[in-house]
């Protein structure tokens, strides 16, 4: 009962905000409604017992990346004409995909929802992640190192690519 209510609650938030993000005329408002989508997804992660993932989702995607997106959007000139085509296309794409998926579901199999209980008891997921870092046969640590190298590469390329202006040009 509680799970079902929560599920539909988060689903409504996620899908509603996603639609708003696609269809809203104002780019900045779209970006803000993306926040609802991300938070709704975080709610799903919590329901699935992945609390670490949920919080990371909130911290990194909502607190970090989305802030940067909005930061960028606020500084750019909104082009209202640009949104019209996108809205139509997006609406077509969303409705089309949804209908396709629904038809597929109906056509192939009956509703076969996964019971939350089947996923196992949510436990200390951080502990598992931490242990994974320390395991000898795990590739998690090298993977993280690779991401740091990539980050350094990104920062370096931005530094090299930036322009310098003389005062007169300003």
């Amino acid at each position, binding site marked *: 009962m509680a799970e079902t209510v929560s599920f539909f609650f988060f689903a409504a938030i996620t899908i509603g905000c996603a639609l708003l993000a696609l269809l809203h005329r104002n780019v900045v408002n779209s970006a803000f409604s993306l926040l609802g989508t991300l938070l709704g997804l975080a709610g799903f992660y919590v329901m699935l017992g992945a609390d670490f993932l949920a919080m990371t989702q909130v911290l990194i995607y909502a607190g970090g990346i989305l802030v940067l997106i909005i930061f960028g959007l606020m500084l750019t000139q909104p082009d209202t004409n640009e949104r019209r085509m996108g809205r139509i296309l997006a609406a077509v794409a969303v409705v089309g995909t949804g209908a396709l998926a629904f038809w597929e579901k109906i056509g192939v199999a009956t509703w076969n929802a996964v019971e939350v209980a089947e996923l196992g008891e949510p436990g200390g997921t951080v502990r598992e992640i931490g242990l994974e870092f320390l395991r000898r046969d795990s590739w998690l640590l090298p993977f993280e190192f690779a991401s740091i190298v990539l980050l350094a590469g990104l920062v370096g390329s931005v530094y090299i690519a930036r322009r*310098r*202006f003389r*005062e007169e040009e*300003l």
Partner: protein
Amino acid sequence: MANSTKDPALRAGERLVELDVRTQDVEINMGPQHPATHGVLRVLLRADGEILTGAQSHLGYLHRCAEKIGEKVDWLQYLPYTDRYDYLSAMNNNLAYSLAVEKLLGVEAPERAQFIRVILAELNRIASHLVAVGTYGMDIGAFTPFFYALRERELLLDIFEKICGARLTYSYIRPGGLMNDAPAGWLEQVKAFTELFDKKWGEYWDLLVDSKIFVERTANVGVVSEELALAWGCSGPMLRGSGVDWDLRRDAPHLVYDRLDFEVIVGRGYRGTVGDCFDRNYVRMYEMVQSNRMIRQCLEQIEDGEVQHPDVGLLLRPAPGEAYVGIENPRGELGHYLVSDGSKIARRLRVRGPSFCNLAVAEHLLPGCMLADAAAIIGSVDIVIGETDR
């Protein structure tokens, strides 16, 4: 991030501004009602994000036609109007006007009056610099030093109130001498203040000027080079902060300044470049110490005597002619140019205000700085809108 950097390859006065992304400029009205513009100054800023790309100051919101009024009222009646252009240093304004009228009249105030004038002018300089340093702290974001500075200023205002009955607009120094002699116990009160002030001065230094954040906010910000300062006609701490050794108290001796031993404080890049905001503030800080020193010497040298020239009464009729006297106001050179046609009213009265001239250079400094530096730079110029607009 973006900031002006010094690059030896650049020509003089040219700065290299590093920008990560170039976006559309935004125009912002800083003022006329803005906490950092010290009154009703309006600065129209053009900014690229946090970096300013243009600045234009709009004056006149407080224009009261002071000079025109001067051509409509008696010589003495104009005295209260001088209080009002730089209301933080009204004694100095009275003094500047009185000296100009005295020059026109061809008289000189008695010696005791001259000593009291110097004491008052220097006390007023301390009071004015206290407000300048305190409000500068507020521009930077530190509120508390302002209250400490105002606390000492309050003692000074008590001193002024005791001698002339007013706390802000004194009208005390008048052509020919003073309104009346110092009351009993006044000189002792001044002496007590000078002793107290030397102790309290360190607090402003430790709390505000030596603070790491203050240093970071002011050092190397808004650098006015020596040539720039001279070219734009800066004066006072603005000029001395740029390393120009020029002080009218020493270089154009008037009153009894030549009998006093004092140093002219010159900016020397204590925390950054010569002529940055820190240096201007540094000059103000140490000028307070020097003023205090001068007052102490005056208190030792002062003798009893008359305070008003016997020939100068309430109604003045200077002989036809003209006179210009500039004195060292806390903010720079405050000059009065007076033309008399022999009547009891000035033919022409013109004021050369220091803030007005100093402010002009701020417009030149702002482009290339950050938005927060706008407050720091305008604050370091230490303008009083009453005087820029007059």
